[in-house]
């Protein structure tokens, strides 16, 4: 495994076979595209549902139902029905479907759990509903929203490594190819890379969250009632 990881041939394009940097870039691209699309769908929707309180039970129910859905099955079904040429689109849809439920639930729970007195105070100060949402509820909900974003991103990275099965790239390619060729060191090396990628992304996002979230919210929030999903 170590030999595979340190072999320079695996880090460049040799005989038309993409090396590790390209696979890594593909993996990050798949992840970024899906997470951005999912966030654009889930955060506004979750904010609306959390603000108005309408459809909360629907969100919780949907999240639980989606958790049972096997990612691999969804990916395979979409890739097969959309065809090889649209494999990337099929995978992106799969990844978005995986990322939306946790983000939606996180945003909803975040907005719901904002201290009600702060919201009342904002209204009392004459803020419009829009301002209440954007200036008070969203900043206060940020820890939970970003936490959900991190969870979703990790799930997307995990699922993107399966994409190789439907003839796409990403780091999972080495695992699938390695199994087909019975090259275990290649599989293990790729597994180490995938695990490292997930951990690094998690740490970077955790750091970003620490920077972005208001210092006033950093104090232990243990007394808050947790939203159960």
């Amino acid at each position, binding site marked *: 495994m170590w030999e595979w990881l340190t072999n320079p041939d695996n880090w460049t394009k040799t005989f038309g076979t993409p090396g590790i940097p390209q696979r890594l870039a593909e993996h990050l691209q798949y992840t970024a595209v899906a997470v951005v699309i999912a966030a654009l769908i889930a955060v506004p929707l979750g904010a609306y549902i959390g603000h108005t309180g309408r459809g909360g039970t629907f969100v919780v129910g949907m999240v639980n139902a989606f958790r049972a859905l096997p990612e691999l*099955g969804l990916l395979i*079904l979409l890739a097969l029905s959309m065809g090889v040429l649209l494999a990337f689109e099929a995978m992106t849809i799969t990844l978005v479907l995986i990322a939306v439920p946790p983000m939606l639930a996180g945003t909803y729970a975040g907005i719901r759990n904002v201290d009600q007195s702060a919201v009342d105070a904002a209204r009392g100060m004459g803020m419009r509903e829009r301002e209440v949402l954007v200036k008070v509820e969203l900043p206060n909900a940020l820890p939970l929203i970003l936490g959900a974003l991190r969870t979703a991103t990790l799930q997307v990275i995990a699922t993107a490594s399966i994409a190789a*099965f439907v003839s796409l790239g990403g780091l999972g390619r080495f695992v699938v190819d390695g*199994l087909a060729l019975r090259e275990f060191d290649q599989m293990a090396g790729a597994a180490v890379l995938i695990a490292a990628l997930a951990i690094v992304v998690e740490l970077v996002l955790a750091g970003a969250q620490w920077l972005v979230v208001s210092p006033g919210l950093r104090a232990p929030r243990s007394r808050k009632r947790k939203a159960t999903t």
Partner: protein
Amino acid sequence: MTWVLDHVDQLLSLSAYHLWLALLPLVLGLLIALPLGWVASRYYWARVILVPAAGLLYTIPSLALFVLMPLILGTLILDPLNVQIALTVYTVALLVRVVADALAAVPATVAAAATAMGYRPVGRFFAVDLPLALPVLLAGVRVATVSNISLVSVGSLIGVHGLGQALTEGFQRDNYAEIIAGIVLIVVLALAVDAVLVLVGRVLTPWARIGGRR
């Protein structure tokens, strides 16, 4: 549909195997997470070490963990143990935190009253702390169960075939019926086991219903 009817036997045996692959790790993981979570709820230093470590393990994608298992355990790459132990790791990683939180949420006055009545630590744990922590614990176990059942299908990519076999084989043969049957069965299994857990929870915590809440 005809394909499904022709292959009922095969699908049933795959389902049974799928459940075996998913539920053994659940039981093992719970048995390991209980003492770890108990230690984490009691000692601050243990909590500071165990909870972040569990979080880190949980970030490792399933395919990567499955593939790394032979390296750590010395098993063969196609050994189903790889999947089962990897899922055990996930279950422990998820539940350590849940157990610690659930036990920490037991009111101190109740624990003190139990001690005053003469419960010894171990007896108190099983007779007082654990039952009171059960609702929160069960919520965590349900999440672990459903995600385990879904994750077993990824094992198909490294040749450990539960119902994931229906997915990969269906893909190779352009057989939609097989893929859809696989997906539906996985979801049905997950929801069925989840329903059983809810039922078990209701039986084990009869006091939760008397208060009229939920």
